[in-house]
C-alpha cells in the first residue's frame, strides 16, 4: 500500500487553557500493524499525545497546533460528527484504570457492545457473538457468561482484559493503550501483556503503547519514543533504544534498572534487642476472630526489626502486606499475637496506645496525593507533629519545619506552598519529612515509591537510605517491586495469602535455592531485553500451575493453556496437580526443570 501510515501526528502542540505547553511540536507516525511505545515520566505528555491522536483533549487542555491524520483524513479539520464516528470505530482507547473506566451499573456485555451498535458496525446480536469471541481470545474465564456480570464481580486483571475486548469490539485500525498494565501486579501484568500482544498481532491493529516502564514496552513495541517535558527526546527501534541509547536521558532510564546496585549489606547483629518485634499476629476484617463472617487477612505473622535495619515485606497484591502495616500501626486491631516496641507490648487498637508510642511509630503512605491535606501548607503539615508531640512554640516549630525540609532535600521557601503545587516526588518527600518530624524510631513505608516514576523513585529511595544511615531509623518497607527490595532491604519477608512463607537476609532470599513462590515473583519482574516475555512465557509454560492461588480460581485459565493445542483444560489441570505435588514435597526450584519436561511431553502428546 502506498500510504501504509495509518496514523500521523505532525507538529502536535497541546496547551492547557492557561497557556502552559504540555506537548511541544511532536511528530508521531504509525504504520499498519506496528506498535509504537511512548515512554517518559509522568507529566511528559504521553497520555496527552495518546488522546490527541483521537483529536481529543482532556478537560482544561487544548490542541493548539499540528495535524492529526488518521487513515488519510485530517481529524482536526473534519467535523465534530466525523471525529465522533471515528472514535471507538477506527481508533480505540484502553485506559490505565479499568476499574474507573467502567460504568458500575451496566453489565460488561452491554458496555462492550455499546460501541459497535452505536457506530452501526454490527447489530446487537452479532456484536455479542463477536464479544464472546474476543473474551475467548483474551482467555477470560467462562467467556460465554462473563458478559452478564457487572464490573465489580470480576478481578482487576480480568477487567483490564474486558476493556481490551471493548476497544477491539469495532475492529479499529489503531488502538491506544494508556498504561494498561500499570495498575496490575507483576504476576497479572505478564498475562495481560502477553494477551494484548497476541490480540494486536492477530487483528493486525496498530498500537500506541503508553507506559513509564521501559522494560514492559520493550516486550511489546517495535519502536520506542522517549518523551520528556512534552518534547521528543529520542525515537528509534526498540533494540537500539535499549542497547545503544543516543541521549543522556535514555541512558539514565535504561540503566535505572539494569545497573541498580544490589545492596550487599551487613545484616545487623541479631543478638541485639529488636526495636520492633511482631509475634504470631493474626488479624483481618470483621468483628473478631470468633465473629461470624470474619476473614483473617494476616495469619500468624512474626518478624523482628532491629535498630537501623530495613525489613522488606514483599508479595503480590492481596497477599496482606498493607494489612500488616495497618496492624502494626494499630489502625486495624489484631485478633491475637503480640507486638512489642522496644520490649514493651503495644495495645492492639490505636485509641489505647499512649502518645509516646504513636510518636515513635510513623508511617509513609503509598499515594502522596491523598496522604497530604490539600488545604494545608507544608509548614502546617510538617509543623503539626512537632507542635503536638513536643509542645513547641510557634517560632520553634517554624525553625524545625525549615530544618526538616532541608533534611529531605526541599528548598526552604516551599514551607508556604500547598501540596497541589508540588510534584509527586516532592510530595513524597514532604510525607517523609512529616514522619521525621515526630522523631520516630520505626517508620513503616507502605509502597512509598510505587506511585512514582522510576527515576524519581530512585531519588526517594536514596533519601530514605541516607536518612537511615544518619538517624539510625528502622524501616518496615512494604513493596511489590523486587528491584527496590534488593536495593534497600537488609532482610526480606515474603508474604503469600496472609502468611510469611520465607524470611531471611535479602541476599539469601534472592539466591537459590528459592522458595517456588519467590522464584515466581522474581521471574515476573520485567527485564530490559526484548525477549524477556517470550522467555518467561516459555518457562511459565511448565510452571504455570504455580500461579499463586491457582487452586482458588480454577476458572482462571493458566497461561500454559494458551500454548496447548488440543485440550487446554486438561493440560492446566495436569500442571496444577503436578505443581501441587511439587509444593507438597517441597522440592523447590531445582525440581521445576523436571516438571517442565513432564508438561512439555504431555503437551506433545496432546498435539499428536
Amino acid at each position, binding site marked *: 500500500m502506498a500510504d501504509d501510515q495509518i496514523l500521523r501526528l505532525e507538529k502536535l502542540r497541546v496547551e492547557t487553557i492557561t497557556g502552559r505547553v504540555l506537548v511541544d511540536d511532536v511528530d508521531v507516525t504509525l504504520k499498519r500493524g506496528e506498535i509504537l511505545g511512548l515512554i517518559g515520566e509522568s507529566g511528559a505528555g504521553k497520555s496527552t499525545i495518546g488522546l490527541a491522536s483521537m483529536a481529543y483533549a482532556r*478537560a*482544561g*487542555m487544548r*490542541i493548539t497546533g499540528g495535524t492529526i491524520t488518521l487513515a488519510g483524513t485530517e481529524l482536526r479539520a473534519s467535523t465534530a460528527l466525523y471525529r465522533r464516528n471515528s472514535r471507538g470505530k477506527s481508533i480505540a482507547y484502553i485506559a490505565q484504570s479499568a476499574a474507573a473506566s467502567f460504568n458500575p451499573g451496566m453489565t460488561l456485555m452491554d458496555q462492550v457492545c455499546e460501541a459497535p451498535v452505536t457506530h452501526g458496525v454490527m447489530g446487537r446480536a452479532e456484536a455479542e457473538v463477536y464479544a464472546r469471541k474476543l473474551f475467548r481470545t483474551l482467555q477470560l474465564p467462562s467467556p460465554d457468561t462473563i458478559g452478564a456480570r457487572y464490573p465489580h464481580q470480576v478481578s482487576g486483571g480480568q477487567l483490564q482484559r474486558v476493556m481490551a475486548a471493548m476497544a477491539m469490539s469495532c475492529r479499529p485500525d489503531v488502538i491506544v493503550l494508556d498504561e494498561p498494565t500499570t495498575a496490575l501486579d507483576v504476576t497479572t501484568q505478564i498475562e495481560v501483556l502477553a494477551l494484548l500482544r497476541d490480540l494486536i498481532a492477530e487483528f493486525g491493529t496498530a498500537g500506541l503503547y503508553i507506559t513509564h516502564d521501559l522494560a514492559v514496552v520493550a516486550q511489546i513495541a517495535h519502536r520506542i519514543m522517549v518523551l520528556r517535558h512534552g518534547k521528543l527526546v529520542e525515537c528509534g527501534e526498540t533494540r537500539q533504544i535499549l542497547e545503544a541509547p543516543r541521549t543522556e536521558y535514555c541512558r539514565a532510564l535504561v540503566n535505572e534498572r539494569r545497573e541498580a546496585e544490589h545492596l550487599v549489606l551487613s545484616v545487623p547483629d541479631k543478638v541485639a534487642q529488636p526495636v520492633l518485634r511482631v509475634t504470631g499476629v493474626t488479624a483481618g476484617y470483621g468483628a473478631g476472630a470468633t465473629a461470624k463472617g470474619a476473614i483473617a487477612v494476616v495469619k500468624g505473622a512474626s518478624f523482628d526489626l532491629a535498630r537501623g535495619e530495613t525489613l522488606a515485606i514483599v508479595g503480590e497484591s492481596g497477599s496482606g502486606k498493607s494489612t500488616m502495616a495497618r496492624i502494626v500501626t494499630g489502625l486495624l486491631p489484631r485478633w491475637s499475637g503480640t507486638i512489642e516496641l522496644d520490649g514493651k507490648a503495644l495495645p492492639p487498637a490505636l485509641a489505647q496506645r499512649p*502518645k509516646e508510642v504513636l510518636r515513635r511509630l510513623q508511617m509513609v503512605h503509598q499515594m502522596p496525593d*491523598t496522604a497530604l491535606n*490539600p488545604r494545608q501548607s507544608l509548614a502546617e503539615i510538617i509543623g503539626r507533629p512537632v507542635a*503536638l508531640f513536643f509542645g513547641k512554640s510557634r517560632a520553634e516549630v517554624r525553625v524545625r519545619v525549615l530544618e526538616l525540609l532541608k533534611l529531605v532535600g526541599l528548598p526552604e521557601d516551599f514551607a508556604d506552598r500547598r501540596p497541589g503545587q508540588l510534584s509527586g516526588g516532592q510530595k513524597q518527600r514532604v510525607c517523609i519529612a512529616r514522619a521525621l518530624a*515526630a522523631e520516630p524510631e520505626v517508620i513503616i513505608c507502605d509502597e512509598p515509591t510505587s506511585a512514582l516514576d522510576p527515576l524519581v523513585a530512585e531519588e526517594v529511595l536514596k533519601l530514605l537510605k541516607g536518612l537511615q544511615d544518619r538517624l539510625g531509623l528502622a524501616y518496615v518497607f512494604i513493596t511489590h517491586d523486587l528491584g527496590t527490595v534488593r536495593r534497600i532491604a537488609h532482610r526480606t519477608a515474603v508474604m503469600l495469602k496472609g502468611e510469611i512463607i520465607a524470611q531471611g537476609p535479602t541476599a539469601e532470599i534472592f539466591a537459590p535455592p528459592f522458595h517456588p513462590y519467590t522464584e515466581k515473583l522474581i521471574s515476573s519482574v520485567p527485564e530490559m531485553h526484548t525477549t524477556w516475555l517470550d522467555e518467561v512465557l516459555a518457562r511459565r509454560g511448565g510452571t504455570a500451575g504455580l500461579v499463586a492461588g491457582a487452586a482458588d480460581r480454577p476458572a482462571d485459565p493458566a497461561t500454559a493453556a494458551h500454548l496447548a493445542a488440543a485440550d487446554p483444560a486438561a493440560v492446566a489441570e495436569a500442571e496444577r496437580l503436578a505443581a501441587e505435588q511439587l509444593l507438597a514435597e517441597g522440592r523447590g526450584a531445582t525440581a521445576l526443570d523436571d516438571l517442565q519436561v513432564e508438561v512439555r511431553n504431555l503437551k506433545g502428546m496432546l498435539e499428536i
Partner: protein
Amino acid sequence: MTLFGHKLPVTALLGLFIIVLNIAVAVAGPYLAPYGETQVVGGGWDPASAATWFGTDQIGRDMFTRLIYGARMTIGIAFVTTILSFAIGISTGLLAAVTGRWVDTLLSRAVDVVLSIPLLIWALMILNVLGQSLFSLVLTIGCLDSTRVFRLARALGIGLVSLDFVEVARMRGEGLGWVMRREILPNAAAPLMSEFGLRFCFNFLFIAALSFLGLGVPLPYADWGGMVKDNVGGISFGLPAALYPAAAIALLTVGINLVVDWFLSIDARPSGAQAEM
C-alpha cells in the same frame, strides 16, 4: 470584573447586583421607606399614585413601604435560619462520618425519620405546638433544614475520611475536633458554600410558604410571603397588589441562583467538544 481572583460573568454580576440591592434595602429600610411599617395611608387596595408608588394593601398600608420592611424581615430570618441549619447539619454530619458505627447509624436513621415526612407538614405540626413567634419559627426551620445539610456533610465527610491524610492525623492521636475542623471541613468547603446559597433560597421560599399558610412571621410585621397571602384576594378583582411581593421573592431567588451557578462553575473546566479545538 473579578472577584476572589475569578472572572465574573455578566449573569453572576447581575445576580450579585440583585443581592447587594436587596441587602442594602434591608439594612437601610427605615430610612428609605416613606411611611411607617404599619401606618394606614389610604383605603384598601388603592391604585398606584405619586404618594403610594405600588398602591396600598388590603387595609390601606403603603405597599412600597411594606416591601422595604419585608425585605428586612424575610432576608434576615432566612439568613439566620440557614446559618443555624448549617451549624447543626455540618457538625452532626461530619461527626457521623468521622465516628462511624453506631453514632452514624443513630444520627442517620433519626434524619431518615425526619426526611420521611414532608418538611412543610413537620413545620406545621411543630409551629402549631410551639406557637407563632419569630424564635420558634427560626428554630423549627433551622432544625428541619439541617437534615438536608446533614446528608450532604456526611456524604462529603465519608468520602474524605477514607483518605490517607485523615488516617495520618488519627495515627498522630489527633482528637475528633481537630479531624473534623482542620482535616475534613476545609476540603468540603466548596460544595458546602454553594449548598449554602441554594438552601438560603429554599429557606426563604419556605418562610414565604409558611407565611402564606398563616404560620410564618407573626403580625403585624411585614414579610413578602405573608404579603402575598394577605393580598391574594385582590387578584380576583384584577388588582395587582399580591404580585409585587411575589415579584420581589422571584427576583431575589433568581439573583442568588445566578451567583450560586457561578460558584459551581468555577471549578468546572471545559471538556469534551468544547476543549477539542
